[in-house]
């Protein structure tokens, strides 16, 4: 497939792997965080871990939209779906995300709630047009990549005079999450994690550009390489981070030049800015409440805001105490460190959100990488 195969060339990948192995300083330990679930997925799906030297470690970050959605918001969506007037349109990933007491949208659907899986916001708009008797709510989640389509849907709904369409907005902001991780040693709210550089988001950066990351170099002396989602992109970006460490540099670099510019997509930014405004604070699973980290509809578009239209009341709910999603999301633990992993928590019966989306660290490790666990465990035993 054109424009894809080029970035999945196994031979080239092995050549980059050889360069990484040659340049990695054996006296150093390298720890890089891939922020996005898309990177986590590519690393697991292509077995890239096997191509890296033992002293180059990738830490999974929180950039999985489904994973960081707090359990209370899932409960609110389920409550909304139970409203007999409501048709809830959602991306399929959200169907199995566990709410409180084992509830989920897929179970609510089986019990009679009108929940439709859609591929795009336009599908939700079409349902609203076809069913004027139904209140169609789009369950909007995601980082800066999925926000412009939500904004577009709101504008379209207004232009077409749809009075039965609204969105349940859960859009969150990437730079706020990176900041929360970097500030952890200072704030003490999160366990500090040693990170020498980030694989920066690819699709998100196509929207916001690379400039928003400059502050992390200035304030935290961090390294960021904005990286494409294809496996070769990931390999090359790891090499770029490694070279920054070896050369003692800290900088924002852009590996994904075929899609990302310093300024980003101005039209999309303007659209989002027109429709959405910052929330004072938003709860993230794993990261806790982060100020100015999420969006809500502006007053001007309040009529399309499901939270206002249905006078939704916030639900505060806590995760299963044994679930390690929180510490896994910030890279402090690995999936196999969780007692629930693979025992009661599997993609079929997820206890935590990281086990649901294919971009979640636990699901990626379960689906692609868990065959390594036994070797890792025996290596650990031999070492101790």
């Amino acid at each position, binding site marked *: 497939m054109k424009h894809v195969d080029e970035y999945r060339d*196994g031979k080239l990948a092995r050549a980059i792997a050889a360069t990484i192995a040659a340049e990695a300083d054996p006296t150093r330990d390298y720890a890089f965080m891939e922020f996005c679930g898309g990177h986590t997925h590519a690393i697991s799906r292509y077995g890239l871990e096997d191509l890296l030297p033992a002293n180059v470690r990738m830490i999974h970050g929180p950039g999985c939209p489904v994973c960081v959605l707090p359990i209370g918001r899932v409960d609110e969506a389920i409550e909304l779906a139970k409203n007999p007037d409501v048709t809830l349109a959602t991306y399929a990933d959200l169907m199995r995300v566990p709410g409180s007491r084992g509830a989920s949208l897929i179970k609510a659907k089986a019990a009679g709630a009108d929940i439709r899986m859609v591929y795009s916001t336009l599908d939700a708009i079409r349902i609203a047009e076809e069913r004027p008797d139904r209140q169609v709510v789009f369950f909007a989640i995601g980082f800066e990549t999925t926000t412009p389509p939500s904004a577009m849907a709101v504008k379209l709904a207004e232009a077409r005079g749809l009075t039965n369409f609204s969105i349940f907005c859960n859009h969150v902001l990437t730079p706020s999450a990176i900041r929360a991780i970097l500030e952890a040693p200072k704030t003490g709210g999160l366990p500090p994690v040693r990170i020498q550089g980030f694989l920066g988001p690819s699709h998100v950066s196509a929207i916001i550009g690379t400039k928003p990351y400059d502050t992390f170099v200035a304030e935290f002396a961090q390294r960021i390489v904005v990286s494409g989602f294809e496996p070769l992109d990931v390999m090359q970006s790891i090499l770029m981070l490694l070279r920054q460490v070896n050369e003692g540099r800290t900088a924002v670099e852009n590996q994904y030049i075929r899609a990302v510019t310093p300024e980003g997509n101005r039209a999309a930014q303007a659209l989002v800015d027109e429709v959405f405004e910052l929330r004072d604070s938003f709860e993230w699973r794993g990261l806790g409440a982060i100020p100015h980290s999420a969006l809500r509809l502006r007053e001007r578009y309040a009529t399309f805001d499901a939270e206002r239209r249905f006078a939704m009341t916030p639900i505060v709910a806590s995760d299963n105490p044994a679930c390690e999603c929180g510490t896994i999301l910030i890279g402090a633990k690995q999936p196999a460190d969780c007692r629930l992993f693979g025992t009661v928590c599997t993609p079929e*019966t997820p206890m935590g959100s990281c086990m649901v989306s294919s971009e979640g660290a636990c699901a990626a490790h379960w689906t692609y990488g868990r065959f390594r666990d*036994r070797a890792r465990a025996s290596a650990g035993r031999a070492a101790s």
Partner: protein
Amino acid sequence: MSETREPRLRRRRMDVKSGRVDLSHGAGGRASAQLIDEIFRDAFSNAWLDQGNDQAAFDVPLVPGGRMVMATDAHVITPLFFPGGDIGSLAVHGTINDVAVGGAVPLHLAVSFIVEEGFPLADLKRIADSMGRASREAGVPIVTGDTKVVERGKADGVFITTTGIGVLAPGVELSGDRARPGDVVLLSGSIGDHGVAIMASRENLGFETAIVSDSAALHRLTAAMVAAGGTGLKLMRDPTRGGLAATLNEIATQSRVGIRIAEEALPIKAQVVAACELLGLDPLNVANEGKLVAVVEAGAAEAVLAAMRADPLGREAVAIGEVIEDDRSFVQMTTSFGGGRIVDWLTGEQLPRIC
């Protein structure tokens, strides 16, 4: 029953008291296997069912040495008509294939229709004609049937269940629990064609591809494989719902072995790769209706592969991997990058009703 026993996984049992059937129970993955295991196998358990194959082989009383195979399959596909077939031809092919991959020669089919009130007679005739044509082409006649009509809204157009019987030649013993380390895994052709053809023909996905369903009756191919492989042919299975991934996991679990395949060996059409890329699907999880997987002893692999390639439906047959020792029953794949990964059962909601 078209699922085998579920993976040996420590996990919660289903909540039979207050739980409900949801779409994941029908997706051909682990939840489907669990539903069958905890509801149906609990209730029906017997020696034939517990083999966990897509068909049951049984001795025929009063006929010394006589053995037969029986299989059944319900078809609820939407849309009813798709590039490369329709629900009728699919219902004929699907059940013939379930009998054939048991190593048997399919003899007869039975069919039952559940039709929704208001369903156009013209569509029903088109489907019946297609079934007649498919069964005549295969040489497997539909010899009995039943029809029920339900009120509007109680079904979606038409649902078709077909049941097939076949006869086993002496000495043919195929079963999903017979794979052993060192055996070779063969695949009869490209994967994902049926699932992608169905998805592309759903108007709400808004894209078109040139891919047609691979729906076909495989019994001539399987007969050639049985003849060529002899006792070296251990098992065959058709990777329908849940795709190649589910089938390989069923075999690994049933035989208590591991399987390792090579990504570079997998035949996948460029259009299928492209459509899967767009939809976020893995071709390994996408359904096929005219392909089969076989596990053969290494010594018989070449002969079976040659027999497959001599049949029009096996022209692109390839060896995709080998059976290895693994008490965890993992299916692993060497990626095109040279790394390793697991090939897991389907999880999540594949688009509903593909077969």
